[in-house]
């Protein structure tokens, strides 16, 4: 139930009592409350749970994590584990 999905903010509407936005989830567009994402901008990604954005995706952190994961992947080549898989460091 704690499923939350990243989506791209297409537009922001501050005319009503709650700050609302139109968010694109890979082609499916939904109305999302972004009341708690104070500095949200069009084009940014938010993480949405039951119609409310609970967090903004930090692109730099995402890239850093992917870099880390990539380095882990590279390690196999560095260690030559194609021949010696499972031998440990």
């Amino acid at each position, binding site marked *: *139930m704690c499923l939350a999905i990243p989506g791209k903010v297409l537009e922001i509407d501050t005319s009503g009592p709650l700050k609302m936005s139109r968010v694109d989830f890979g082609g499916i567009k939904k109305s999302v409350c972004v009341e708690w994402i*104070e500095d949200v901008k069009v084009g940014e990604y938010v993480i949405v749970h*039951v119609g409310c954005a609970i967090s903004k995706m930090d692109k730099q952190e995402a890239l850093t994590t992917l870099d880390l994961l990539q380095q882990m*992947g590279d390690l*196999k080549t560095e260690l030559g584990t194609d021949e010696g898989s499972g031998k440990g*460091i």
Partner: protein
Amino acid sequence: MRFIDEYRDQALAQQYVERIKQITTREWTLMEICGGQTHTIVKYGIESLLPETINLVHGPGCPVCVTPLEMIDKAIAIASKSDVIFTSFGDMLRVPGSTQDLLSVKAAGGDIRMVYSPLDAVKIAQQNPSKTVVFFAVGFETTAPANALSVWQAKQSGVRNYSILCSHVLVPPAIEAILSSSSNRVQGFLAAGHVCAVMGYEEYLPLAEKYRVPIVVTGFEPLDILHGTYMAIKQLEEGRVEVENQYSRAVRREGNIPAQKLMRQVFEVTDRHWRGIGEIPSSGFRLRDEFSDFDAEKVFADVATITVQESPDCIAGLVLQGLRKPYECSVFGTKCTPEHPLGAPMVSTEGACAAYIRYKHVPSASAAGGRA
């Protein structure tokens, strides 16, 4: 970058598994808290990829599973009333009460509507002023702000025919209940990423320190789970005890402060009964007195006396505390199935028992980096 596909890369997952194997020298037991993480682990066969010495046990973080049976019966009693529109997330509708489920009430003519968001339930109340609209507010800290917002919005907008049946639970007291048990065998936790997106992770620091367990805030994609597992095992192998954040693209240390503020304005901490586990002190939310007009248990005072007993065959409490695997239950897959669940973890697709039934046939190697 769409923040999903990048974290399902099959080749990277396999290489990551190698790295975990390289640093693991002995047996370790980790618990993932969230049912969503359990779902990923079982779906992608992650357990079978890891070294045999790493034991992943599945925690109590499935709100559908831990909502008490008597709360389901209260929902059914309210939804059966003729002047009520009962609204709920879809996965609560098929949870069996002691005699029937909400879908059966709907089939018998009850006005029960599945909603995507509690804000939709408030709209239904606005559109149906002659009916009483009740929303089944279950969930952890991830869901609590949205449910609180619905009550706040109803009050602000003068919507008087809206109330919630509130059964909110909190993660840290459940972790403490598990760690303080004499039978505990969990040595490290993968904390629930979206709970922490709301709450931050400062409240886990005293738990890690007191019980000497690493806690790694972890995301939900296969590579997130492998990365979180790697970080927890690395801490254990190096004798470190820290709270680390694998899911940094979504989780800040302090969490989402405006969401927390609204949640605390509407809710206050209370003792809660967890299905399969029992009473845990200060482990949930209830509505504050100033919002009591929106409390369905007060609006429908006749449901307050409903009490029921669980099936004696079910070992849900042991499964939800990581003491037994689902398949170690004598009625798993026989008397207890997703179609006819006897206990909590078989009820929801996020429940550990239901996930094992659903995905156990998937060959683990090919599923490891597959795409959902």
